[in-house]
């Protein structure tokens, strides 16, 4: 396992570097936006006097590089700092939001990943049949429609007409698991439909590509049933591309859900980062971006490790 440990070590180090670069870019990026937190918070009710008082009280009168240095030093000590807009601890601010985001992503993933794999396998098994076409048409339609449109259709059918699920994903810390699941049903379904196609089609394609190989033919000649050929002989060799696609979609479930959050009024990280960018609340923007960047880094690492682990040729290089 030594090579694996080495790869992971390298990747983690590179990941940290990525995170640092992201933090610099975001910090600089927010500086380029017009106005700062004082003007954005006070909006139309701003006067020169209140803006100056605001800036001074938040230390915004310091030069940019100093502010960045202070922020970085705090983060390295594990302190995300406090939100400029209301002085609350960012850790406290982010924790429930992050939990909500992860809960929604997990629910969507539990629905999407197994059905995508199963759908891909089945359409590979019954390729070029009516069933295969049906799956293709369904998944391609759902990915082609914008998410908000799918969301509105689901609301119209399942909420307004049938009254099964609420249109408002109203969750709070007091909600139990059942209540939470009920609340996130429609957003999770929307996300599922959005990510299904990519994974299903990749599963189908990877497996069909492998089916031309000689060892598949051998397996068939041994008299194995077709599903066994697929699951035992084709699928293990197809894992690498499938896992990569699955993991990229998982990352999307965490970082790409702003629109779904808006439509269903779900209090996740997306809403928080949009709010914070609008208010130029740099520490919060930074914290959220770091979480999003870390999600990508970690999930990519997972994908690579899984590809290697499932591939004996990479596990035991000569």
């Amino acid at each position, binding site marked *: 396992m030594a090579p694996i440990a080495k790869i992971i070590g390298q990747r983690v180090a590179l990941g940290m570097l990525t995170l640092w670069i992201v933090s610099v870019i975001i910090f600089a990026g927010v500086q380029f936006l017009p*106005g700062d937190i004082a003007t954005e*918070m*006070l909006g139309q009710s701003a006067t020169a006097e209140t803006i100056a008082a605001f800036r001074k009280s938040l230390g915004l009168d310091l030069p940019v590089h100093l502010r960045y240095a202070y922020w970085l030093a705090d983060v390295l000590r594990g302190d995300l700092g406090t939100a400029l807009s*209301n002085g609350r601890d960012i850790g406290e601010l982010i924790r429930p939001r992050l939990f909500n985001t992860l809960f929604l992503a997990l629910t969507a993933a539990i629905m999407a990943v197994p059905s995508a794999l199963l759908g891909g396998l089945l359409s590979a098994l019954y390729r070029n049949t009516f069933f295969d076409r049906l799956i293709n048409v369904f998944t391609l339609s759902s990915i082609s429609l914008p998410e908000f449109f799918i969301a*509105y259709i689901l609301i119209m059918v399942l909420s*307004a007409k049938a009254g099964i699920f609420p*249109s408002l994903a109203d969750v709070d810390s007091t909600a139990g698991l059942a209540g939470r699941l009920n609340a996130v049903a429609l957003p999770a379904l929307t996300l599922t439909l959005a990510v299904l196609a990519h994974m299903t089609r990749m599963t189908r394609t990877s497996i069909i590509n492998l089916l031309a190989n000689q060892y598949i033919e051998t397996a068939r000649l041994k008299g194995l049933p077709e599903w066994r050929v697929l699951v035992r002989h084709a699928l293990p060799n197809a894992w690498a591309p499938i896992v990569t696609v699955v993991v990229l979609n998982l990352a999307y479930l965490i970082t790409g859900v702003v629109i779904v959050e808006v439509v269903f*009024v779900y209090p996740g990280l997306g809403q*928080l980062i949009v*709010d914070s960018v609008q208010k130029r609340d740099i520490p919060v923007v930074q914290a959220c971006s770091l979480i999003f960047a870390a999600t990508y880094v970690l999930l990519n690492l997972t994908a690579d490790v899984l590809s290697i682990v499932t591939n004996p040729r990479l596990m035991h290089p000569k």
Partner: protein
Amino acid sequence: MSKWGEHSKPALTVSRRSVLKSAAAVGALAITSSGATLSVVAQESAPKRGGHFKLGVAAGATSDSLDPGTYTNSFTELFGKTLHGYLTGIDADGKVNGEIAESWDVSKDAKTWIFKLRKGVEFHNGKSLDAKDVLASINHHREEQSKSGAKPIVDPVDEVRADGPGTVVFVLKDGNADFPYLLEDFHLAIVPSKDGKADVSGVGAGGYVLDNIDYGVKGTGKRFANYWKSDAAWFDSFEALAIHDVTARTNALATGQIHAMERCDLKTIHLLERNKDLEIVSIAGTQFYCTAMDCKAAPFDNADVRLAVKHAINRQQLLDTLLHGHGKLGNDHPIGSTNRFFAKNLPQREFDPEKARFHLKKAGLSDLKISLSTADAAFPGAVDAAAIYQQDAAKAGVSIDVVREPNDGYWDTVWLKKPFYMSYWLGRPTADWMFSQGYAADAAWNQGHWKNARFNELLVAARSELDDAKRSEMYAEMQSICRDDGGEVIPVFANNVSALSRKIAHTKLASNWDLDGFRCAERWWFADA
């Protein structure tokens, strides 16, 4: 000294509360009576307690806080009016009445105001309210380092002091006959004093006790058992949800997840009106949309150019298409039709290309080319409004180049800075307040940088005039000056349009702020379903 406050109400005025009380008593009479007002009231149930009221608000951000000085959106403003008591209130007819201040006296120069505090008012934490709390609450906005949005309101206060535990005296730098109206501002919540400082943690003396608040998401409150008003705050508890997306708000209301929503989508309101379970309420208020011209620089430093631009806009079309009729025509001055000093006899300015050309000619111009900065941040539909304006103005020889600015940062980069730009005012409840904050020569938010000597003279004179008839005359003249000389085109006043479930009962809605003056949780109740 003239006596104001509750005593100033004419005995015959039927208040909202007394109508309700008598409604049950005269119920039988009302059925046979032909009086329209009475039968309308009789249809409503008498207020009753109970229920959990859920409301969808169009604002609310993670950056909000409960410090009254920081209220900047309808979410926090609603919480202010629900959790806190205020010295004064404004009723459904736009008149000021005593709340925590039971009554008040004023000196002849309108500079010294003496407020008698109501006895037996209690804060949510059990502390009884006295003059010290009022001082701390007001001084919270007056501090040197104050970031409060109410600073312009309290700046003219020279001194505020207690005269015993039950009396607070305000001494103003200049006389202001409207002072009790200003104290109704949502920023000026009366909070308990803690070591001489205002406690801004959300403890108040209002009808509901804060239960939980998740900024930018939702907040909940429970009825305050010891609220000093026995005939208000009917719900057991209330919940306000921040739902920015208007479609999400409408869905939530249509599927019964909330009982009321503010700011309906006017483009689809005719569809919403078909829903028999909903009541659409469209309340004329103080909010208006405007286009400001920089009067300091050419071409707008010429009053005739300003008049040409004012005649080149088709107000009726904007009212019909932009607001779908949910508004009133504007007359280039900021006083709305619900204001008690609204000049009724001032002729309505119309779209008149000929007059526009006439004024252009008078200014020595054959045509006019101007750039209009706009973004939907200025008001919903501002970009469309600019396109309509462009079309109509072309007929009057005014060619407008529409410059679409980014929404983000609009108030920082465009507002007060560009020579010709779109904007809005939520408006203010009094004429003096509106003129002082937006049109006085030295006003920080004078959008057109407009200075008119006669106007500013009248503004100061009217402020301390205690005779309403004289004031009315002065304000009428000021509206006329503003209309003909001012630096803003004010084409329309926008109604506050909300939708309510039929389960909710209410009396006449106030127009000073949205959602019944932000007092919906206090004033509304569940009718028998």
